[in-house]
């Protein structure tokens, strides 16, 4: 009720009071963000800082005592072949999914931006997996790729080809994880590109048409440069999402065989809960935060710069 009254009042006064006042010293009203700050400090900031401390110990995760061992965990991390395998997988999941999500998402957006039939059907179905739990999406694809009774092998049997153990083969299963992650989140890329496409004025294309530009030339000189802001957003969110991938891996391969398809998240989980190697797990966590931060910032700066050039 108050809202309505004051709004009327505002209409009248906003025109006249535009320039006159420079308010007296403002108070920060800090008590209003105190609850939010307390929760975030307690459950994110504090653990993050004490994680740095734990990374300098040989703590096993449950005993009361532990020793400070300096940079030993860091030395161990950089000389551990598992670290590099896991970092390599993490980069594949992050950068691979980002590439596919953006290329396919842009293609879908270009198609589904046209006034054609089946447009909203396709958009809905492509977007649907975004709202499903990544763990469950992993299981759904597990039913497809499973060695025993999976839908893929049902086809191979019908064709008289030998069944394949796609999820157990380390040269295939990391790519299947990229595939499933792409399948799940290509809808977000598509939607962001659709919004970007709809914000481009039709006048550009009409002018280009008059100049006799081909469809491809129009795409290269009009669509792509004007889509740069959408590309930046998509790149950054897909990279972050892919680099911290966890659920899909658990559902599809459990990280196996051995460590073959582990990401940094699943590796950390394994070190802590299965190998009681808490100090080392904390060190891996710091490396992971560092990698995500560096790569996403690099992507942000790189694509922002492209936006300016375009």
């Amino acid at each position, binding site marked *: 009720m*108050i809202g309505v009254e004051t709004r009327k009042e505002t209409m009248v006064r906003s025109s006249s009071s535009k320039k006159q006042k420079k308010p007296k010293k403002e108070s*920060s009203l800090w008590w209003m963000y105190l609850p939010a700050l307390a929760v975030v400090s*307690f459950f994110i900031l504090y653990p993050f800082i004490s994680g740095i401390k734990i990374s300098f110990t040989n703590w096993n995760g449950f005993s009361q005592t532990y020793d400070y061992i300096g940079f030993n965990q860091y030395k161990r991390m950089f000389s551990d072949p598992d670290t590099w395998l896991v970092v390599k997988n993490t980069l594949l999941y992050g950068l691979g999914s980002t590439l596919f999500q953006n290329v396919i998402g842009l293609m879908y957006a270009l198609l589904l931006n*046209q006034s054609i039939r089946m447009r909203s059907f396709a958009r809905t179905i492509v977007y649907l997996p975004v709202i499903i739990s990544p763990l469950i999406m992993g299981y759904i694809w597990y039913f497809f790729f499973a060695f025993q009774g999976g839908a893929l092998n049902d086809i191979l049997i019908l064709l008289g080809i030998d069944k394949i153990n796609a999820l157990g083969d380390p040269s295939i299963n990391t790519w299947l994880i990229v595939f499933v992650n792409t399948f799940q989140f290509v809808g*977000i890329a598509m939607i962001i590109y659709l919004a970007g496409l709809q914000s481009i004025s039709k006048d550009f294309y009409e002018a280009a048409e008059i100049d006799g530009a081909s469809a491809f030339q129009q795409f290269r000189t009009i669509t792509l440069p004007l889509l740069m802001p959408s590309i930046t957003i998509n790149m950054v969110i897909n990279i972050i999402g892919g680099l911290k991938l966890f659920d899909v891996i658990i559902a599809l391969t459990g990280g196996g065989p051995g460590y073959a398809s582990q990401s940094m998240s699943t590796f*950390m989980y394994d070190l802590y809960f299965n190998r009681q190697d808490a100090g080392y797990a904390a060190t891996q966590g710091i490396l992971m935060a560092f990698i995500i931060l560096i790569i996403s910032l690099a992507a942000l700066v790189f694509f922002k710069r492209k936006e300016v050039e375009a």
Partner: protein
Amino acid sequence: MNYMNKRKKIVLSAAALIIGLIHMVPFYILVTTALKAKGDFSSKWVFPDKPAIENFSEAWETANLSSAFYNTSIITVFSALLLIIFGSMAAYPLARRQTKLNKFIFMLFVAIMVIPPLTALVPLYQLVVDIGMMNTHEIAIFNNVAAYMPLAIFLYAGFIRSTIPKELEEAAKIDGASTLGIFFKVVFPLLKPVTASILIISCVYIWNDYQFAIFFLQAEEVKTITVALAGFFGENANRMNLVAAAAIMATLPMVILFLLLQKHFVKGLASGSVKG
């Protein structure tokens, strides 16, 4: 695009149809798998003659899904509620009062947004053990609230800055209302669009959460849907039809909500992803 001829239009429509159908394949397989009777090892591409509906009730019972639905609902509702109340309250001074302290705090929230909270898994787990909150709804709620709070604040602050006229609050202040009164009676009702987005983002993410839940909710009575399903999958790897039936039931509420409120979902989730 207006000059598209008929033939081209048909080809493109067919392409859209094919894309839609391809993306439906895993869901089709999910449904046929869920409807295969026990011991039916026929191809998953063939829809069973006699759909084994009883798989659903069996999966519901053995996976203990009623308890899981209850836990997930409680955690989702309370997390979303706290995110909205504390997130909007926090965003207000951060958007309006550009003091040095507030600028710093805002930057702090933005910085935290980039780092996935689970990189600090080891100390967080230890903290939760130390304060005796293992296997409680509260810890799941706190973790989720902390994880999505920076995003909520970011979205609220952006919305307040760009769309809520300052004069409104000044007018209310002259009327003698308290700061909190002004906020909840004047500002908060105007935040409806962004509140809807944050509600959708937090409900989808928290409902689907597995990463937090798997660490902190291991006891049977607090298991959420995803944790229950993962356990169920581990125990029934040779009975995929039951796992598939459970997976369908686990996703159905969100899918129905999505189909009913599609526009809001798409808009809300898109605004949440624009945090880069």
